[in-house]
């Protein structure tokens, strides 16, 4: 079940479905929102466009770090299965034809109702794959703010999206203006950037 039902424009287009997570027969939405970090795509990601068939490694993420709005979080029931090759470190979560890697505490063999963000991750999680068709694609821009340890983290509530037809060749970033007058290498304080993409998959 996706929470996009009430708010996301895809619902107005009639593409999304809603269902009750308490009903055992529910197997998920007809469209699954999948977030793709900019660096995942920039480092070995394959370009794609709306209408393309894609085969991605997915992970169930609590979404807290990315501050994704509720309407792009997924709530669905997943059956957990042991990976045939790897006995630890996570399990395969299956809902209908969608498979994702799950690292929560529940053991294989159980069923969970999970609410969070689906992410594409071909770096750490090429263990399972889900095939789908990209029905809509958005580029996401977010602001950054400094955490106590100096790390720049995504500012809550700063999620902005723009609809695109294909994955971009570049993800723009705005950094604090530098003062150096000579050529050389610099480190810059990131103010805001296109943090990634949100693809709506029919699976």
């Amino acid at each position: 079940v996706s929470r996009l039902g009430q708010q996301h424009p895809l619902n107005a287009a009639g593409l999304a479905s809603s269902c009750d997570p308490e009903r055992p027969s529910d197997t998920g939405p007809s469209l699954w929102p999948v977030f793709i970090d900019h660096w995942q795509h920039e480092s070995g990601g394959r370009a794609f466009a709306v209408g393309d068939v894609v085969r991605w490694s997915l992970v169930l993420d609590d979404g807290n770090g990315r501050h994704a709005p509720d309407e792009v979080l997924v709530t669905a029931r997943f059956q957990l299965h042991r990976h045939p090759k790897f006995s630890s470190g996570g399990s395969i979560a299956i809902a209908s034809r969608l498979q994702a890697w799950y690292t929560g505490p529940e053991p294989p063999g159980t069923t969970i109702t999970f609410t969070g963000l689906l992410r594409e991750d071909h770096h750490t999680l090429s263990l399972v794959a889900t095939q789908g068709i990209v029905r809509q694609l958005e580029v996401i821009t977010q602001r950054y703010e400094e955490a106590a340890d100096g790390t720049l983290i995504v500012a809550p509530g700063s999620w902005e999206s723009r609809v695109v037809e294909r994955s971009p060749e570049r993800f723009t970033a705005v950094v604090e203006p530098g003062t150096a007058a000579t050529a050389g290498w610099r480190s810059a304080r990131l103010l805001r950037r296109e943090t990634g993409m949100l693809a709506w998959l029919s699976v």
Partner: protein
Amino acid sequence: VSPDLFGGSDLGCSGYYVASDPTQHEMSCRGTADTVNNFRIAIRYGFWNGSNGFGWSKMYYYHNLWMAPALDIIHHAGNPYGPDTNRVYAEYHTNDNGDIDQYVFVVADIQEIYFQGVKTPDNKAVGVLTGYCENAAGAQEPECPDWVNSTL
């Protein structure tokens, strides 16, 4: 794993798993660097199979980013950014006019101890997943230019 395999190396791998033949173990440490926040990040040997991989092998064989510049970026990046357990370390290069003409990124997982089902023998985070370059327009470059590796 034999305890002596956790011994040191020239690149600061003391306390990390170092295989006697690093090419035979993807989790073998090749080097570490401290971030601006005093967080130690490892670059492990990793692998690159032509379509999938991580660590030094992916950086070097796929993106032509060498060890020394990657360690420098981790160490010098003033404001690492990223959600949850991922961190992105970035530096950029400006020309004589002050215009940015090159970007370099190193991405690490600072918490996860598994990579595709394989656990780090030292129980420390996997560390660097990848590193790559972008040109002046911000578009990804399949390989980092050699001048990046010789000047960083």
